């Protein structure tokens, strides 16, 4: 399930981890820019631990025109959407599937499904269980939204 290219990357923080990924394979440049625009860098550099569902650039590109632009113009609103992608605590794929539903930092629940592979709400996990010093990352193919 895990992308071996991603597994080789290590860093001290989740945020730096994203930067490393962005620099190395350019898959997360939108997410990194969004985290910066929302002013969440410091929060994600704290000891946590956190679990992050990280949408790829392709995931952001699926959103209709203007969606990302409006969010980037409005950091608190963007921050809320991004916090929906973060959990407090470090959870592996197996743990998440067992839990069934988890509550995001934004406050809304996220359903997890393990019937076929590993699905987080309406996204499919492309790479799971990527360890970082302050948490865990699961790479997803859609930006997930509350509701």
């Amino acid at each position, binding site marked *: 399930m895990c992308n071996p290219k991603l597994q080789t990357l290590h860093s001290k923080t989740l945020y730096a981890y994203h930067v490393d990924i962005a620099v190395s394979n350019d898959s997360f440049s939108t997410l990194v820019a969004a985290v910066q625009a929302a002013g969440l860098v410091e929060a994600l550099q704290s000891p946590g631990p956190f679990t992050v569902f990280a949408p790829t650039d392709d995931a952001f590109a699926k959103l*209709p025109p203007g969606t990302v*632009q*409006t969010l980037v113009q409005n950091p*608190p*609103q*963007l921050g809320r959407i991004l916090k929906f992608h973060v959990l407090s605590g470090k959870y592996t794929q197996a743990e998440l599937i067992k839990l069934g539903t988890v509550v995001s930092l934004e*406050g809304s629940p996220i359903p997890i499904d393990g019937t076929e592979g590993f699905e987080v709400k*309406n996204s499919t996990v492309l790479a799971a269980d990527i360890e970082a010093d302050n948490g865990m990352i699961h790479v997803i193919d859609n930006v997930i939204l509350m*509701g």
Partner: protein
Amino acid sequence: MTTTLKSVIPPSTHPFSDIIHRLEAGGSMLPDTPENLMQIIGIYKAYAVPMDFYWRDLLYIAERVFLNPIPAFKYFISKDYLDRPNSYAGDGADLRIWRGEADAHPELREFIDRGETGKMPKLWHHLWHDRVNMEFAEACMRAMLWHQGMGGQFYDYLESEEYIANADRAIKAYFKGNPLMLGLYKLFPTMFLEKVRELSYYANLGLFWEVMAPVFFEMSDLYDEGKMTTVPEAMEFLVNGIFAVAGRPIYHHLYIGDECYEIIPKSAGFTWLYEAALPYVEAVFYRTAPFRGTKSYNAQANQVPDEQKDFHYGILYADVFPVGSAGIPPTLLMQDMLHFLPPYLKEFYAKQYRGEDDELIQLGITFQRSMYNVTSAVIQALRAALLYPLDDQNPRHQMANRKFFEAQMDRFLRPEARLKSIQRQDYR
């Protein structure tokens, strides 16, 4: 190998299976006919003009009139708010998707100036009720205030200590130097607070409609240019619009002179989609409340639902004929739209049944059709945001989409719903 949708999951057995299959194919609840398209686009344009006034005046009331104890002139919008550039239209827009001008629409300005009667001082227009019916906008606002708790976090925030502290600061600043009102505030603090909550909904709805006005103008322009040719295209345009501005902040600021008091700051993180659009659709399209004087309801015979979530008095359920009585909110809107109908729609109504004599009713039913299309856009946007693409070939995903569509259609199974009626072209 490609598989068609029908081969992956069995057909729906829902009473509205035809409509569900249409939605699954990317269509709207409203059938795709040239006449339906002409009607809904014409009415979107006629709606956008008064809406251009509604949003400006709603924000004027929320931000400037505020707790004025005798708000006799709240509909006398200030020049600043009439000239206020729309945040989503004009060259200085935050997001330039729609081509309209930032300024108030020329037809609106002309109507404010002349009304139906002719040029005369604003006060005479007001007293003669020859003006935009802001009461309709306020009725929509009140529906949102009253139903509340329809998703999003706005309602909870209005009860929070942070909000109460912000409102308190604003109230004290607004009545600074007015011992009578400050004394009343001390005696009845929660009454004042409740009024501020209502004003926060004025701001909420104003910010919501500020976006919808340029969207509807753009749709009308595209239709006139021959670039919007089907009902699904019109729906898809709305879906894209919903996503484009989903992250717009919903806030409430009070201005006293140049001083700004943040009652709901932008930093609270409230969004156009979650805190305004979705609650608006739920409160106004589906629920609202029975209009006074139109019908008697026997609560003991269960004619009024026990739960607010089951209220069904919105436009999607309305019997437009009795609704066409004077003074009730939808009629006020119909009267407003009547002033701005495009010529092709006016000609169309003139040729039907009683022609101009029942223009308001015909217009009301067109509006109902058009709002079924807007609701379809909301349903498709929610499906896209929360579920799966329509061309997803995974049967489990398709079934999740199916269940979502069926659950949405369940809301139209009650006899009052007009979904069946709008499938017919002779429902006018």
